[in-house]
Protein backbone atom coordinates (compact mmCIF):
# COMPACT_ATOMS: atom_id res chain seq x y z
CA UNK A 1 0.00 0.00 0.00
CA UNK A 2 1.16 3.45 -0.93
CA UNK A 3 0.04 6.62 0.82
CA UNK A 4 0.63 10.32 0.90
CA UNK A 5 -0.21 12.13 4.11
CA UNK A 6 -0.95 15.86 4.06
CA UNK A 7 1.62 16.32 1.32
CA UNK A 8 2.46 19.82 0.20
CA UNK A 9 4.94 20.96 -2.37
CA UNK A 10 6.25 24.02 -4.13
CA UNK A 11 8.34 24.74 -7.18
CA UNK A 12 10.77 27.59 -6.85
CA UNK A 13 8.85 29.89 -4.58
CA UNK A 14 5.42 28.97 -5.93
CA UNK A 15 3.14 26.77 -3.87
CA UNK A 16 1.78 24.01 -6.10
CA UNK A 17 -0.38 21.90 -3.83
CA UNK A 18 -0.89 21.37 -0.16
CA UNK A 19 -2.51 18.88 2.16
CA UNK A 20 -2.84 16.10 -0.40
CA UNK A 21 -3.70 12.76 1.21
CA UNK A 22 -4.28 9.81 -1.08
CA UNK A 23 -4.01 6.07 -0.70
CA UNK A 24 -3.17 3.73 -3.55
CA UNK A 25 -4.09 0.14 -2.78
CA UNK A 26 -2.71 -2.87 -4.65
CA UNK A 27 -4.53 -3.30 -7.94
CA UNK A 28 -5.57 0.34 -8.21
CA UNK A 29 -4.56 3.26 -10.34
CA UNK A 30 -4.33 6.90 -9.33
CA UNK A 31 -4.75 9.33 -12.20
CA UNK A 32 -3.28 12.74 -11.45
CA UNK A 33 -5.01 15.26 -13.67
CA UNK A 34 -4.80 19.00 -14.06
CA UNK A 35 -3.84 21.65 -16.55
CA UNK A 36 -0.25 22.45 -17.55
CA UNK A 37 1.70 23.97 -14.70
CA UNK A 38 -0.55 22.58 -12.00
CA UNK A 39 2.28 20.54 -10.52
CA UNK A 40 1.63 17.05 -11.86
CA UNK A 41 5.27 16.43 -12.71
CA UNK A 42 6.46 17.81 -9.37
CA UNK A 43 3.92 15.61 -7.60
CA UNK A 44 5.20 12.52 -9.36
CA UNK A 45 8.84 13.40 -8.79
CA UNK A 46 7.99 13.86 -5.14
CA UNK A 47 6.45 10.39 -5.05
CA UNK A 48 9.72 9.05 -6.51
CA UNK A 49 11.70 10.72 -3.76
CA UNK A 50 13.47 13.01 -6.22
CA UNK A 51 11.83 16.09 -4.78
CA UNK A 52 11.42 16.65 -1.08
CA UNK A 53 8.02 17.79 0.12
CA UNK A 54 7.52 21.06 1.98
CA UNK A 55 5.35 19.24 4.44
CA UNK A 56 3.67 15.91 5.00
CA UNK A 57 5.02 12.48 4.22
CA UNK A 58 4.95 9.68 1.67
CA UNK A 59 4.50 6.21 3.10
CA UNK A 60 5.29 2.86 1.53
CA UNK A 61 3.74 -0.02 3.47
CA UNK A 62 3.35 2.39 6.34
CA UNK A 63 6.99 3.50 6.44
CA UNK A 64 8.32 6.92 5.45
CA UNK A 65 10.18 6.68 2.13
CA UNK A 66 12.87 9.01 3.46
CA UNK A 67 13.80 6.29 5.92
CA UNK A 68 13.52 3.48 3.38
CA UNK A 69 15.72 5.22 0.78
CA UNK A 70 17.13 2.59 -1.59
CA UNK A 71 14.71 -0.04 -0.31
CA UNK A 72 11.92 2.16 -1.62
CA UNK A 73 13.68 2.87 -4.94
CA UNK A 74 13.73 -0.89 -5.46
CA UNK A 75 9.92 -0.91 -5.39
CA UNK A 76 9.25 1.54 -8.19
CA UNK A 77 9.63 2.11 -11.88
CA UNK A 78 9.47 5.72 -12.99
CA UNK A 79 8.94 6.89 -16.54
CA UNK A 80 9.48 10.62 -16.46
CA UNK A 81 8.61 13.15 -19.08
CA UNK A 82 12.23 12.91 -20.18
CA UNK A 83 12.75 9.54 -21.82
CA UNK A 84 15.89 8.60 -19.94
CA UNK A 85 17.44 6.95 -22.97
CA UNK A 86 20.73 7.64 -24.69
CA UNK A 87 20.53 8.90 -28.27
CA UNK A 88 23.82 7.27 -29.25
CA UNK A 89 22.82 3.80 -28.09
CA UNK A 90 20.43 1.47 -29.88
CA UNK A 91 17.05 0.64 -28.32
CA UNK A 92 18.38 -2.80 -27.40
CA UNK A 93 21.46 -1.36 -25.68
CA UNK A 94 19.38 1.24 -23.89
CA UNK A 95 16.96 -1.31 -22.52
CA UNK A 96 19.64 -3.83 -21.62
CA UNK A 97 21.60 -1.26 -19.63
CA UNK A 98 18.61 0.22 -17.86
CA UNK A 99 17.17 -3.20 -17.03
CA UNK A 100 20.45 -4.47 -15.65
CA UNK A 101 20.86 -1.29 -13.61
CA UNK A 102 17.37 -1.79 -12.24
CA UNK A 103 18.20 -5.40 -11.44
CA UNK A 104 15.63 -6.75 -13.88
CA UNK A 105 16.20 -9.58 -16.31
CA UNK A 106 18.08 -8.21 -19.30
CA UNK A 107 18.77 -11.11 -21.65
CA UNK A 108 18.61 -10.45 -25.38
CA UNK A 109 15.42 -12.38 -25.97
CA UNK A 110 13.49 -10.66 -23.20
CA UNK A 111 14.58 -7.20 -24.31
CA UNK A 112 13.58 -7.99 -27.86
CA UNK A 113 10.18 -9.20 -26.74
CA UNK A 114 9.63 -6.02 -24.75
CA UNK A 115 10.47 -3.87 -27.76
CA UNK A 116 8.12 -5.87 -29.95
CA UNK A 117 5.39 -5.53 -27.35
CA UNK A 118 5.44 -1.73 -27.75
CA UNK A 119 5.25 -2.19 -31.51
CA UNK A 120 8.88 -1.56 -32.45
CA UNK A 121 9.80 -3.88 -35.31
CA UNK A 122 13.11 -5.73 -35.40
CA UNK A 123 15.03 -3.54 -37.89
CA UNK A 124 14.56 -0.59 -35.53
CA UNK A 125 16.13 -2.40 -32.59
CA UNK A 126 19.67 -2.01 -33.87
CA UNK A 127 19.51 1.61 -35.03
CA UNK A 128 20.90 4.42 -32.92
CA UNK A 129 17.96 5.87 -31.00
CA UNK A 130 18.83 9.32 -32.32
CA UNK A 131 17.35 8.48 -35.75
CA UNK A 132 13.98 7.38 -34.32
CA UNK A 133 10.87 9.57 -34.19
CA UNK A 134 9.59 11.13 -30.96
CA UNK A 135 6.88 8.50 -30.69
CA UNK A 136 9.35 5.67 -31.23
CA UNK A 137 11.68 7.06 -28.59
CA UNK A 138 8.78 7.23 -26.18
CA UNK A 139 8.01 3.60 -26.92
CA UNK A 140 11.60 2.60 -26.15
CA UNK A 141 11.30 4.38 -22.85
CA UNK A 142 7.97 2.71 -22.06
CA UNK A 143 9.27 -0.72 -23.04
CA UNK A 144 10.91 -0.72 -19.60
CA UNK A 145 7.46 -1.45 -18.21
CA UNK A 146 7.45 -4.82 -19.96
CA UNK A 147 10.68 -5.69 -18.16
CA UNK A 148 9.75 -4.25 -14.80
CA UNK A 149 8.82 -6.53 -11.94
CA UNK A 150 8.41 -3.67 -9.49
CA UNK A 151 5.04 -3.25 -7.78
CA UNK A 152 4.76 0.55 -8.05
CA UNK A 153 4.77 2.36 -11.38
CA UNK A 154 4.97 6.14 -11.58
CA UNK A 155 4.29 7.41 -15.08
CA UNK A 156 4.46 11.02 -16.22
CA UNK A 157 2.31 11.62 -19.31
CA UNK A 158 3.00 8.14 -20.70
CA UNK A 159 0.50 8.60 -23.53
CA UNK A 160 2.06 11.78 -24.88
CA UNK A 161 3.22 11.39 -28.52
CA UNK A 162 1.91 7.82 -28.72
CA UNK A 163 -0.36 6.74 -31.57
CA UNK A 164 -3.58 4.76 -31.11
CA UNK A 165 -1.89 1.37 -31.40
CA UNK A 166 0.79 2.14 -28.84
CA UNK A 167 -1.80 3.67 -26.52
CA UNK A 168 -3.74 0.45 -26.53
CA UNK A 169 -0.62 -1.67 -25.92
CA UNK A 170 0.21 0.49 -22.94
CA UNK A 171 -3.35 0.38 -21.61
CA UNK A 172 -3.31 -3.40 -21.79
CA UNK A 173 0.01 -3.52 -20.01
CA UNK A 174 -1.27 -1.27 -17.23
CA UNK A 175 -4.37 -3.42 -16.92
CA UNK A 176 -2.30 -6.58 -16.62
CA UNK A 177 -0.10 -4.94 -13.99
CA UNK A 178 -3.14 -3.93 -11.94
CA UNK A 179 -4.61 -7.42 -12.22
CA UNK A 180 -1.33 -8.72 -10.80
CA UNK A 181 -1.85 -6.55 -7.76
CA UNK A 182 0.42 -3.76 -8.95
CA UNK A 183 -0.05 -0.06 -8.25
CA UNK A 184 0.07 2.73 -10.79
CA UNK A 185 0.21 6.50 -10.43
CA UNK A 186 -0.11 8.25 -13.75
CA UNK A 187 -0.09 11.93 -14.58
CA UNK A 188 -2.19 12.47 -17.65
CA UNK A 189 -4.73 14.68 -19.28
CA UNK A 190 -6.50 11.97 -21.14
CA UNK A 191 -8.98 9.30 -20.13
CA UNK A 192 -7.51 5.90 -19.38
CA UNK A 193 -9.63 3.17 -20.90
CA UNK A 194 -9.26 0.57 -18.21
CA UNK A 195 -12.61 -1.09 -17.52
CA UNK A 196 -12.42 -1.29 -13.79
CA UNK A 197 -13.66 0.65 -10.82
CA UNK A 198 -10.12 0.73 -9.49
CA UNK A 199 -9.29 4.19 -10.80
CA UNK A 200 -9.29 7.23 -8.57
CA UNK A 201 -8.62 10.76 -9.69
CA UNK A 202 -6.59 13.49 -8.06
CA UNK A 203 -7.17 16.90 -9.58
CA UNK A 204 -4.52 19.54 -9.10
CA UNK A 205 -5.46 23.15 -9.81
CA UNK A 206 -3.36 26.20 -10.30
Amino acid at each position, binding site marked *: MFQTVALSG*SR*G*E*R*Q*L*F*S*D*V*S*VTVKPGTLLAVV*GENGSGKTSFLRMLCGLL*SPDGGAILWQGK*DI*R*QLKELYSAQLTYVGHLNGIKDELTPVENLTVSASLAGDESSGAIVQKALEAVGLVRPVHRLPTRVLSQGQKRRVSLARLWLSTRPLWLLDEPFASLDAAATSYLTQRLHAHLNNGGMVVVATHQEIAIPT*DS*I*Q*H*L*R*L*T*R
Partner: protein
Amino acid sequence: MSGTGINWFKYSSPQALYPLAGRMIPWFAALALGLIGVGLYVGFFVAPTDVTQGDAYRIIFVHVPAAWMSMFLYVIMAIWAGLGLGLNARPSFMMAQAIAPTGAMFTFLALFTGSMWGKPTWGAWWVWDARLTSELILLFQYIGIILLRSSIDDLRRADRASAVLALVGVINVPIIYFSVRWWNTLHQGASVSITAAPTMAGTMVTAMLVMMFGFWMYSIAVTLARMRCVIVERERHPSWGKQASMPDAVEAR
Protein backbone atom coordinates in the same frame (compact mmCIF):
# COMPACT_ATOMS: atom_id res chain seq x y z
CA MET B 1 20.33 15.39 3.51
CA SER B 2 16.57 15.58 3.86
CA GLY B 3 15.35 17.07 7.08
CA THR B 4 13.80 14.07 8.70
CA GLY B 5 14.40 15.25 12.25
CA ILE B 6 12.39 17.73 14.16
CA ASN B 7 12.52 21.15 12.57
CA TRP B 8 14.07 23.11 15.41
CA PHE B 9 13.86 26.30 13.46
CA LYS B 10 10.14 26.15 12.95
CA TYR B 11 9.60 28.64 15.75
CA SER B 12 12.45 30.91 14.83
CA SER B 13 10.81 31.87 11.57
CA PRO B 14 12.41 34.59 9.46
CA GLN B 15 9.48 36.87 10.20
CA ALA B 16 10.29 36.66 13.90
CA LEU B 17 14.01 37.08 13.31
CA TYR B 18 13.61 40.33 11.42
CA PRO B 19 12.60 42.55 14.36
CA LEU B 20 14.88 40.63 16.72
CA ALA B 21 17.87 41.37 14.48
CA GLY B 22 16.72 44.97 14.25
CA ARG B 23 16.83 45.31 18.02
CA MET B 24 20.28 43.72 18.26
CA ILE B 25 22.04 45.70 15.55
CA PRO B 26 22.40 49.04 17.43
CA TRP B 27 24.01 47.35 20.42
CA PHE B 28 26.59 45.54 18.36
CA ALA B 29 27.21 48.59 16.22
CA ALA B 30 27.81 50.71 19.32
CA LEU B 31 30.13 48.08 20.77
CA ALA B 32 32.02 47.91 17.49
CA LEU B 33 32.45 51.68 17.30
CA GLY B 34 33.56 51.89 20.91
CA LEU B 35 36.03 49.03 20.72
CA ILE B 36 37.53 50.15 17.41
CA GLY B 37 37.84 53.69 18.80
CA VAL B 38 39.64 52.49 21.92
CA GLY B 39 41.76 50.13 19.84
CA LEU B 40 42.87 52.90 17.52
CA TYR B 41 43.68 55.16 20.46
CA VAL B 42 45.75 52.52 22.20
CA GLY B 43 47.34 51.48 18.91
CA PHE B 44 48.45 54.93 17.87
CA PHE B 45 48.97 56.84 21.12
CA VAL B 46 49.78 54.31 23.82
CA ALA B 47 51.63 51.50 22.09
CA PRO B 48 55.32 52.40 21.61
CA THR B 49 57.26 52.35 18.37
CA ASP B 50 58.63 48.90 17.65
CA VAL B 51 62.40 48.62 17.97
CA THR B 52 63.02 46.59 14.82
CA GLN B 53 60.09 47.44 12.54
CA GLY B 54 59.57 51.08 13.42
CA ASP B 55 56.02 52.36 13.09
CA ALA B 56 55.19 50.10 10.13
CA TYR B 57 54.22 47.44 12.60
CA ARG B 58 51.08 49.44 13.45
CA ILE B 59 49.52 47.93 10.32
CA ILE B 60 49.03 44.71 12.25
CA PHE B 61 46.33 46.46 14.29
CA VAL B 62 44.09 46.09 11.26
CA HIS B 63 45.87 43.26 9.50
CA VAL B 64 45.74 40.61 12.21
CA PRO B 65 42.09 41.22 13.16
CA ALA B 66 41.07 41.20 9.48
CA ALA B 67 42.95 37.96 8.81
CA TRP B 68 41.51 36.41 11.91
CA MET B 69 37.94 37.44 11.02
CA SER B 70 38.35 36.14 7.45
CA MET B 71 39.04 32.63 8.70
CA PHE B 72 36.68 32.77 11.64
CA LEU B 73 33.79 33.96 9.48
CA TYR B 74 34.43 31.18 6.96
CA VAL B 75 34.14 28.57 9.67
CA ILE B 76 31.00 30.19 11.08
CA MET B 77 29.51 30.37 7.59
CA ALA B 78 30.27 26.68 7.03
CA ILE B 79 28.67 25.80 10.37
CA TRP B 80 25.48 27.66 9.44
CA ALA B 81 25.55 26.00 6.04
CA GLY B 82 25.94 22.57 7.61
CA LEU B 83 23.15 23.27 10.07
CA GLY B 84 20.96 24.35 7.18
CA LEU B 85 21.61 21.13 5.28
CA GLY B 86 21.20 18.96 8.35
CA LEU B 87 18.08 20.52 9.78
CA ASN B 88 16.59 21.80 6.54
CA ALA B 89 16.40 25.24 8.14
CA ARG B 90 15.96 28.31 6.02
CA PRO B 91 17.22 30.87 8.57
CA SER B 92 20.60 29.20 8.84
CA PHE B 93 21.05 29.31 5.07
CA MET B 94 20.22 33.00 5.27
CA MET B 95 22.87 33.50 7.93
CA ALA B 96 25.43 31.75 5.71
CA GLN B 97 24.38 33.97 2.82
CA ALA B 98 24.66 37.10 4.97
CA ILE B 99 28.14 36.23 6.27
CA ALA B 100 29.83 35.51 2.92
CA PRO B 101 30.35 39.09 1.63
CA THR B 102 31.73 40.33 4.97
CA GLY B 103 34.09 37.37 5.08
CA ALA B 104 35.26 38.07 1.55
CA MET B 105 35.83 41.73 2.42
CA PHE B 106 37.97 40.88 5.45
CA THR B 107 39.94 38.39 3.36
CA PHE B 108 40.64 41.12 0.83
CA LEU B 109 41.64 43.51 3.63
CA ALA B 110 43.95 40.94 5.16
CA LEU B 111 45.68 40.52 1.81
CA PHE B 112 45.87 44.24 1.13
CA THR B 113 47.18 45.25 4.54
CA GLY B 114 49.47 42.23 4.48
CA SER B 115 51.17 43.42 1.34
CA MET B 116 51.34 46.97 2.80
CA TRP B 117 53.18 45.50 5.75
CA GLY B 118 55.30 43.19 3.62
CA LYS B 119 56.79 45.90 1.42
CA PRO B 120 58.68 47.80 4.17
CA THR B 121 59.36 44.70 6.28
CA TRP B 122 60.25 42.09 3.67
CA GLY B 123 60.98 44.38 0.75
CA ALA B 124 58.34 42.74 -1.41
CA TRP B 125 54.64 43.37 -1.95
CA TRP B 126 53.91 39.70 -2.25
CA VAL B 127 55.66 36.63 -0.93
CA TRP B 128 54.47 33.10 -1.57
CA ASP B 129 54.32 32.44 2.12
CA ALA B 130 51.99 29.68 3.28
CA ARG B 131 49.70 32.07 5.11
CA LEU B 132 49.44 34.58 2.32
CA THR B 133 48.83 31.94 -0.29
CA SER B 134 46.16 30.16 1.69
CA GLU B 135 44.54 33.52 2.44
CA LEU B 136 44.44 34.19 -1.30
CA ILE B 137 42.82 30.82 -1.92
CA LEU B 138 40.34 31.54 0.85
CA LEU B 139 39.36 34.66 -1.08
CA PHE B 140 38.85 32.54 -4.22
CA GLN B 141 36.62 30.22 -2.22
CA TYR B 142 34.52 33.07 -0.85
CA ILE B 143 34.12 34.45 -4.36
CA GLY B 144 33.21 31.00 -5.66
CA ILE B 145 30.48 30.61 -3.07
CA ILE B 146 29.05 34.06 -3.79
CA LEU B 147 29.18 33.46 -7.55
CA LEU B 148 27.56 30.03 -7.30
CA ARG B 149 24.72 31.46 -5.27
CA SER B 150 24.15 34.34 -7.61
CA SER B 151 24.02 32.12 -10.68
CA ILE B 152 21.25 29.88 -9.32
CA ASP B 153 17.76 31.33 -9.63
CA ASP B 154 15.97 28.77 -7.52
CA LEU B 155 16.45 29.89 -3.91
CA ARG B 156 16.24 26.44 -2.42
CA ARG B 157 18.89 25.08 -4.73
CA ALA B 158 21.04 28.20 -4.29
CA ASP B 159 20.95 27.76 -0.51
CA ARG B 160 21.87 24.11 -0.60
CA ALA B 161 24.43 24.15 -3.38
CA SER B 162 26.40 26.99 -1.82
CA ALA B 163 26.18 25.22 1.53
CA VAL B 164 27.78 22.10 0.04
CA LEU B 165 30.52 24.22 -1.51
CA ALA B 166 31.16 26.00 1.80
CA LEU B 167 31.52 22.67 3.57
CA VAL B 168 33.84 21.21 0.95
CA GLY B 169 35.90 24.39 1.17
CA VAL B 170 36.23 24.23 4.94
CA ILE B 171 37.91 20.83 4.58
CA ASN B 172 40.16 22.26 1.92
CA VAL B 173 41.46 25.25 3.88
CA PRO B 174 43.73 23.34 6.31
CA ILE B 175 44.87 21.01 3.51
CA ILE B 176 45.86 24.00 1.42
CA TYR B 177 47.63 25.62 4.34
CA PHE B 178 49.79 22.59 4.99
CA SER B 179 50.40 21.83 1.33
CA VAL B 180 51.55 25.38 0.65
CA ARG B 181 53.79 25.33 3.70
CA TRP B 182 55.30 22.08 2.56
CA TRP B 183 55.78 23.43 -0.95
CA ASN B 184 57.20 26.68 0.40
CA THR B 185 59.84 25.05 2.57
CA LEU B 186 61.09 23.16 -0.47
CA HIS B 187 61.50 26.33 -2.49
CA GLN B 188 64.11 27.88 -0.24
CA GLY B 189 63.47 31.33 -1.70
CA ALA B 190 60.98 32.63 0.83
CA SER B 191 62.90 32.52 4.05
CA VAL B 192 60.88 35.22 5.78
CA SER B 193 58.00 34.18 7.91
CA ILE B 194 55.38 36.05 9.83
CA THR B 195 55.87 33.80 12.83
CA ALA B 196 59.35 35.21 13.30
CA ALA B 197 57.90 38.48 14.59
CA PRO B 198 59.64 39.67 17.78
CA THR B 199 57.79 39.51 21.04
CA MET B 200 55.35 42.34 21.38
CA ALA B 201 54.86 44.82 24.16
CA GLY B 202 51.75 44.40 26.32
CA THR B 203 50.07 47.53 24.97
CA MET B 204 50.54 46.30 21.40
CA VAL B 205 48.80 43.04 22.19
CA THR B 206 46.05 44.94 23.97
CA ALA B 207 45.46 47.19 20.97
CA MET B 208 45.35 44.22 18.64
CA LEU B 209 42.92 42.28 20.81
CA VAL B 210 40.63 45.27 21.30
CA MET B 211 40.60 45.87 17.54
CA MET B 212 39.85 42.21 16.98
CA PHE B 213 36.83 42.32 19.27
CA GLY B 214 35.76 45.52 17.55
CA PHE B 215 35.90 43.83 14.15
CA TRP B 216 34.02 40.90 15.57
CA MET B 217 31.19 43.10 16.84
CA TYR B 218 31.19 44.95 13.52
CA SER B 219 30.83 41.62 11.69
CA ILE B 220 27.88 40.62 13.83
CA ALA B 221 26.17 43.95 13.30
CA VAL B 222 26.68 44.08 9.54
CA THR B 223 25.77 40.41 9.11
CA LEU B 224 22.53 40.88 10.98
CA ALA B 225 21.77 43.95 8.89
CA ARG B 226 22.39 41.99 5.70
CA MET B 227 20.27 39.17 7.07
CA ARG B 228 17.42 41.65 7.36
CA CYS B 229 17.91 42.59 3.71
CA VAL B 230 17.83 38.93 2.73
CA ILE B 231 14.64 38.38 4.71
CA VAL B 232 12.90 41.30 3.05
CA GLU B 233 14.10 40.33 -0.42
CA ARG B 234 12.88 36.79 0.00
CA GLU B 235 9.60 37.99 1.39
CA ARG B 236 8.85 39.49 -1.99
CA HIS B 237 8.50 35.98 -3.36
CA PRO B 238 4.89 34.96 -3.40
CA SER B 239 5.13 31.70 -1.47
CA TRP B 240 5.62 33.54 1.78
CA GLY B 241 2.63 34.43 3.84
CA LYS B 242 -0.07 33.94 1.31
CA GLN B 243 -0.88 30.40 0.33
CA ALA B 244 -1.52 29.44 -3.25
CA SER B 245 -4.74 27.73 -4.20
CA MET B 246 -5.43 24.39 -2.61
CA PRO B 247 -6.03 21.30 -4.70
CA ASP B 248 -9.49 19.80 -4.80
CA ALA B 249 -10.14 16.97 -2.45
CA VAL B 250 -9.57 13.52 -3.76
CA GLU B 251 -12.55 12.26 -5.62
CA ALA B 252 -12.88 8.54 -6.09
CA ARG B 253 -15.09 6.91 -8.59
